[in-house]
């Protein structure tokens, strides 16, 4: 256990541990399907990194190390819940059904979003740190006004927890008793800024100061993340108001493919966290407790591989958009400057897609 306050149901070695308040409700089949999601997300993430290295993406924000946090949270959602992600929630997007290629449109720099947020009930990525937390509270206020039994789940990092918008969202969530769960992935770093610059004490304590519960969960333990998130979402749906979940985890990779973490963190730290790998511990459990055979794992790896290859194909097929598309959807209604810009562009002979 990393600290006593941490909710953990599975040790890094894959041993079950009991917790006074939470117990795993998952069957072996379900755990295997969680494992599958994590394996796929890691594989897709690796593929994306190499696509970026090969010049096929402008940027990539890896999720390695945070698979349990995201799959645990994402699988705890009910279909009608709504999610507000940052730029790194690939695992959540996966759970919501967003096609992998859509997740990469932003990073291929062919879209500022990438998917239909209403269709998947998963908002477009928010890059400005913290902005989405307020959107989530507002959406939750809408849910309240509709009298719907739905919850909202929003994501931010340890770094973003210092932004005024995140902190104001705590004030509002408490004030309106909004059906929202704040999911903070404390991956210990905000680019080069260590967690200790944002707070000297665990982040989940913040919630208490605003008058709602905060829980720290082992973010590398998919069983624990699932139970904690599920309970918080249920509470939100039932009128119990907001919860802050701090998923204590680690960003195994670089901040993004533009980042060079060797400048600011030591290998030893990364090594420690590699031993806490979120995927390995579930595998141990599956092997030991549920006697899952090697062939099953091999099949899943093959499935992930196939998805990665498909992703690669899909990405390579993503053409440069028609420049004229920049004028679409900037406004809902006709606007003279849109007409003027489009006319100028066409007169300049610009148009058409890939080149």
């Amino acid at each position: 256990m990393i600290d006593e306050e941490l909710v953990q149901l599975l040790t890094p070695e894959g041993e079950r541990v009991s917790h006074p308040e939470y117990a795993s409700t998952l069957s072996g089949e379900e755990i295997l399907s969680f494992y599958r999601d994590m394996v796929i997300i890691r594989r897709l993430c690796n593929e994306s990194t190499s696509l970026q290295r090969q010049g096929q993406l402008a940027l990539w924000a890896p999720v390695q190390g945070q698979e349990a946090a995201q799959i645990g949270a994402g699988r705890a959602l009910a279909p009608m819940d709504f999610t507000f992600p940052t730029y790194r929630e690939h695992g959540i997007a996966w759970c919501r059904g967003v096609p992998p290629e859509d997740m990469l449109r932003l990073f291929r720099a062919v879209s500022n979003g990438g998917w239909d947020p209403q269709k998947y009930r998963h908002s477009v990525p928010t890059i400005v740190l913290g902005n989405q937390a307020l959107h989530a509270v507002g959406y939750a206020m809408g849910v309240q006004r509709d009298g719907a039994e739905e919850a909202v789940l929003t994501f931010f990092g340890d770094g973003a927890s210092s932004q005024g918008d995140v902190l104001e969202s705590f004030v509002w969530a408490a004030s309106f008793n909004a059906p929202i769960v704040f999911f903070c992935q404390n991956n210990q770093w905000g680019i080069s800024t260590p967690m200790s610059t944002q707070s000297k004490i665990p982040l989940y304590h913040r919630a208490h100061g605003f008058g709602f519960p905060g829980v720290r969960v082992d973010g590398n333990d998919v069983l624990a993340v699932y139970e904690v998130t599920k309970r918080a979402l249920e509470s939100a749906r039932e009128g119990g108001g907001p919860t802050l979940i701090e998923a204590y985890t680690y960003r195994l990779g670089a901040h993004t493919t533009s980042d060079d973490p060797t400048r600011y963190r030591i290998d030893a730290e990364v090594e420690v966290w590699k031993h806490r790998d979120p995927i390995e511990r579930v595998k141990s459990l599956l092997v030991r407790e549920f006697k899952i055979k090697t062939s099953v794992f091999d099949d899943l790896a093959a499935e992930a591989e196939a998805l990665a290859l498909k992703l690669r194909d899909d990405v390579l097929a993503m053409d440069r958009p028609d420049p004229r598309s920049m004028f679409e959807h900037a406004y809902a209604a006709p606007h003279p400057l849109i007409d003027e810009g489009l006319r100028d562009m066409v007169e300049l002979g610009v148009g058409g897609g890939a080149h």
Partner: protein
Amino acid sequence: MATQTMTMAKALNEGLRAAMEKNKKVLIMGEDVGKLGGVFRITDGLQKDFGEDRVIDAPLAESAIVGTAVGLAIRGYRTVCEIQFDGFVYPAFDQIVSQVAKLRKRSDGVYTMGLVIRIPFQGGIGAIEHHSESPEAYFAHTAGLRVVSCSTPNDAYWMIQQSIEHDDPIIFCEPKSRYWEKGEVNLDQPPNGLFDAVVRREGTDVTVVGYGSTVKTALRAADTAAQEGLSLEVIDARSLAPLDLETMAASLTKTGRLVVVQEAPHTASVGSEIVAALSERCFYSLRAPGVRVSGYHVPYPPTRIEEDYRPSVDRVLDAVDRVMGFDS
């Protein structure tokens, strides 16, 4: 034709009421908008009639007022945010520029940013600092937004309803110094499209463009000028982004002379845009350069001297003299 005389404050109140009656998804949110009815009483009585769920007293945080309105818009609501005074919109600037203005685009048209941000703007009420600012240029510059301003009770009544119905996010600037002035409101039909400029007084010598508080200043200047035999055409811009350049250009083609009157300082302002855009459209008609009468390039002064900061009739007339003095 049903008409009624009322103040601009009352007209806004009635316009909001009409919009709320028409569409259950319309909400009002802001500081003190409930029991108090807002510091200018624009929302007076609305919470009583529509309930606390639709007229929402906000915790004191502007970024959150706008940020949650974005979330409500995603959920299908249309929130009219009240910013208490112009100088307090800046904490919400990030949400407005990075989210309100861009989310439709980012979602490829899936999200409708149905929200109106009402800002009592401009000076003239003898307030303390931060209560007399003219932030419209910041929003006019921002792609993804639209900015409008009313100058009469009739426009106030209709433009607020048109703004709420519109599918793009709208910054709605209310000239607070005109809140208590009365005018006729036609309750049957809107006078104009939301983005149309309107000729408030016809004239032949100089085109004077104003908006919000400065329309009246321009009209007064036209009265005075008329006594000196000068005929000013006064245009109320109404929409600051997009600008109705057609209406302005038509006037300028006739007069050949342009004066723009605004309370904001002139650098990179709506006035700059009007002058620059019309100098391009009307190059051959222009008999003098377009001239701006603006607030000075200083922080808004203590209000005992604000009338020396705000464009006065004298300063407008001085500008008119200047453009008349050019020969070409």
